[in-house]
């Protein structure tokens, strides 16, 4: 019987020098070596996120979008909402990079203005969801017992409410405005986050390291801050990244059925709705730019969320 190594080996047993049998190489400690530099959880996650090309594409797009949303309307010589009928439906040119719409307004300016609205609505709604969700889910999961049962019932009941229908109802009654849209989106939006936080907390609170710090007499508030929150951050961040596009879609959808943000604001949904009539006449740019930015922003958040999910999952460490 011969193994591959033997056959490839340059030594046949008879050629082996005798002194190789005398020299001992005894050092068992070297057998254990550290296979990789130790990185903190967040450093490690970031390193893996950077490797994910799609997620980085999404992140770069969102950063650029945020920059343009900030400076776009400022650097543009056109006002967002001033009508200029003689310049109606101009195709993209040096003066109007993205063309003009049915009222002669500059689409370039309005697009970045819309980015402000969409990002603002999405981020604020996601932040409110997270805040309520962490508090509700955290208490429910940490306290357990009766408190948990009651709080979970509330969630189960609210979970069945079709959020977009309630949102429509609220907007009809309260009148469409930025504030109403955010209230309407968050009124049921936090439920999903609360469920995730609760699940995580329930799981982690029984781990040995939490029990250990409890046995040292740590206060609840300290355990929540030091043990539970850092370890639930991963799923929370992922859920947040994925709830922003939901909010952006909802805003666009509501604008599209006539419940959108009113002048002087311009949102992407409002722009797309206005452009509907014009598309058959060949004024493609009026629809293309808002449609492209709605889609690409949602795409960016989705791939970033996926990337974060992979990066923040300790089980996937390679």
């Amino acid at each position, binding site marked *: 019987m011969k193994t591959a190594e033997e056959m490839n080996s340059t030594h046949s047993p008879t050629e082996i020098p005798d002194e190789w049998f005398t020299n001992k190489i005894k050092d068992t400690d070297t057998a254990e070596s550290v296979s990789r530099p130790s990185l903190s959880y967040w450093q490690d996650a970031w390193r893996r996120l950077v490797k994910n090309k799609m997620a980085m594409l999404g992140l770069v797009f969102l950063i650029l979008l945020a920059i343009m949303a900030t400076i776009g309307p400022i650097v543009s010589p056109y006002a967002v909402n001033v009508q200029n009928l003689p310049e109606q439906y101009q195709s993209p040119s040096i003066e109007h990079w993205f063309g003009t719409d049915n009222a002669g307004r500059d689409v370039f300016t309005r697009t970045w203005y819309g980015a402000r609205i969409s990002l603002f609505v999405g981020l604020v709604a996601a932040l409110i969801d997270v805040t309520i969700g962490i508090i509700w889910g955290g208490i429910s999961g940490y306290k357990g017992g009766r408190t948990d049962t009651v709080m979970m019932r509330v969630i189960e009941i*609210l979970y069945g409410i079709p959020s977009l*229908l309630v949102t*429509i*109802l609220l907007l009809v009654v309260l009148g469409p405005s930025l504030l109403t849209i955010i209230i309407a989106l968050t009124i049921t939006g936090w439920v999903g986050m609360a469920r995730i936080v609760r699940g995580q907390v329930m799981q982690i609170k029984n781990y040995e390291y939490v029990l250990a710090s409890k046995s040292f007499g740590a206060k609840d508030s300290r355990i929540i801050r030091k043990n539970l929150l850092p370890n639930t951050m991963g799923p929370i961040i992922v859920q947040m990244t994925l709830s922003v596009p939901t909010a952006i879609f909802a805003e666009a*959808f509501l604008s599209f059925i006539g419940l959108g943000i009113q002048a002087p604001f311009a949102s992407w949904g409002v722009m797309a709705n206005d452009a509907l009539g014009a598309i058959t006449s060949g004024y493609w740019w009026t*629809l293309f730019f808002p*449609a492209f930015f*709605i*889609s690409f922003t949602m795409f960016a958040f*989705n791939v970033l969320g996926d990337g974060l999910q992979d990066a923040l999952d300790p089980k996937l460490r390679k």
Partner: protein
Amino acid sequence: MLRYILKRLLIMIATLWIIITVTFVLMISIPGSPFNSEGSSNATVQANLEKHYHLDEPYYIQYLLYLKSIVTLELGPSIKQPDQTVNDLLGRGFPISFELGILTIAVAVISGITLGIFAALRHNGVIDYVAMGLAVLGISVPNFILATLLIQKVAVDWDLLPVATWSSPAHMILPILALATGPMAIIARLTRSTMLEVLTQDYIKMARAKGLSPWKIIIKHALRNALMPIVTIMGTLLAGILTGTFVIEKIFAIPGMGKYFVESINQRDYPVIMGTTVFYSAFLIFMLFLVDIAYGILDPRIKVHKRGGE
């Protein structure tokens, strides 16, 4: 199992009650009265409204009578269209919307699961990348934008399919496609990820060790387990498809309930908006209830310990 159904039923009723109550509170809190806005000075309309909502009674009587009217499925009159009730509109529009919805679900579920399975089986292969690329696009492009694009390209530029109205199968293709793409993408992604997880399970290895054919393993052993997470998100998907019909029917001029609903929103026809919202909510909550029951049937373990927190 019976206990489980009973519990879901109670939760369902509680949810419905909250929605009805919220609707009522919103209705009475509309500044002025929703029922004498400009367009509704018509005397017959006014009389219908007063009769239906008992506007001369105190609020708590109004509330109880409103609950009663909902339970007896009297959803109220329309302000803008005299002699029309919400029930009339639903009777005309809902069958069409329902047809659109059912076909969309069928297309989304069948194609989504198929795509997900193939992507999982060819993990990190070309099919996987193409399918998941399409899925991310499907999730990212809102249905109303997709609908507009389809009309412009397929119907207007290439003149391949007719649009507007709901008169023949050819008319149905584009609206269904526009509406089904998003849910299909979500189902495909979920199927793929759960399939990948299920395929690494020991019972799959065991099935292979029995010498079963690959397709038998996938259909009988893997898919059934992979379907469970899909059943749990069905409720959310149904809600998405239902609200999606509003815009799709508006864009394609399909005379379904969604189109009436959007019109009533634009005309601020409050009783129609409220009646329809309550009806749609009840419908969705009932669907959610059915989904929960289906989950209980699919997973034999649920009889012993109910679905956990997550």
